[in-house]
């Protein structure tokens, strides 16, 4: 079964009003700031939240899109940018993959505009969580951020290692 295009998938899932989503997210961030007060702490929390979302949402993405396997990191990153982030699959963000490094383990994803506005750490946690569930340990960092005056949002996704499936039971049991 060929993987369905983003359009087909988008039309098959329930959608939420983008403004509602943005306002809700803003409310979460505001509450976190009130509770934790420190920006670093808030970012860590957001990253953790994104991670929790990512580990679950990867299953939904796999079920809806019918993709069987991305053999290498390059394909995976393309898949993230084009299907996961690019409209109309999940977030409705315009994203493009660029700046591959020499051995293909590190890439940058540039987002033109983001419904998450500032404090986008949820997205980095989300990508990290989703990729971990397909056995790729990655490190996701923000290299460019509009909040800090750059012109676009840029995420750097670096593949640390691919974890193969080990037989979980000890032989003597």
């Amino acid at each position: 079964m060929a993987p369905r295009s983003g359009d087909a998938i988008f039309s098959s899932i329930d959608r939420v009003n983008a403004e509602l989503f943005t306002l809700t997210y803003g409310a979460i961030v505001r509450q976190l700031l009130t509770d934790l007060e420190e920006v670093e702490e808030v970012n860590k929390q957001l990253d953790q939240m994104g991670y929790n979302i990512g580990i679950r949402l990867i299953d939904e993405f796999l079920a809806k899109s019918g993709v069987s396997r991305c053999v290498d990191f390059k394909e995976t990153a393309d898949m993230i940018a084009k299907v996961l982030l690019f409209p109309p699959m999940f977030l409705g963000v315009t994203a493009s993959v660029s700046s591959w490094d020499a051995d293909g383990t590190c890439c940058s994803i540039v987002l033109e505009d983001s419904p998450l506005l500032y404090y986008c750490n949820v997205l980095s946690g989300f990508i990290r969580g989703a990729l971990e569930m397909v056995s790729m340990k990655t490190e996701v960092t923000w290299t460019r951020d509009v909040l800090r005056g750059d012109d676009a949002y840029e995420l750097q996704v670096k593949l640390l290692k691919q974890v193969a499936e080990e037989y979980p039971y000890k032989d003597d049991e």
Partner: protein
Amino acid sequence: MQFFGGSEISPSPPVPTATGNNAHMMYVFNRNGVCLLYKEWNRPLHTLNPQQDHKLMFGLLFSLKSLTAKMDPINADKGNLGVPQLPGQGCSFHSFRTNTYKLSFMETPSGIKIILVTHPKTGDLRESLKYIYGLYVEYVVKNPIYSPGSPIKSELFNTALDQYDCRYIRFWSSVAIAPRQGFIYRRRYTLRAIESQHCVFHYLRGESSQRDVSNCPYPRMIFPHEI
């Protein structure tokens, strides 16, 4: 003592009727071997306690996946037998059949494995397994109370599975397999075929006298276009 049941003719399974369930059992495992769900509709024989049963099942699937990936006639890149693989890498088997049951298997890139044991004459269940995966996503993954990696206790999921299963026909089956020492079958059940993405392994044990030392089963690989 003969282990592989070739000489004894097993009783043929009763003819399926038009109502009831076809599926006998269902397992859902995650990538760490935790059995997230075990559902049984019709299983008259329990040979092991649940933990051993789950371990057995998981071990069997692990070995079979490894086997089909290494014996894949189409893929050039194969590792050594026994080397762990990434989920989804290599050619994965999707079912195997014995003379009394068929086991259908699906693994997602995120490591979720869904297994259905049914009547041997059941057709290709890959679409059904995908549908069940969809149900899993809807009722389990999206449930905020469920923590990933723990056994599933969702009533909605169970109900949805029962409802989906009513379309099939009722039958019975049971299995006793030791994954590490090779396949040791109860005398009535013989392996017939293992189906993978690129080919089908047919298994046939020839008739011979008990004193024949060279009596060994031979697998014959058949490509999909030959069928």
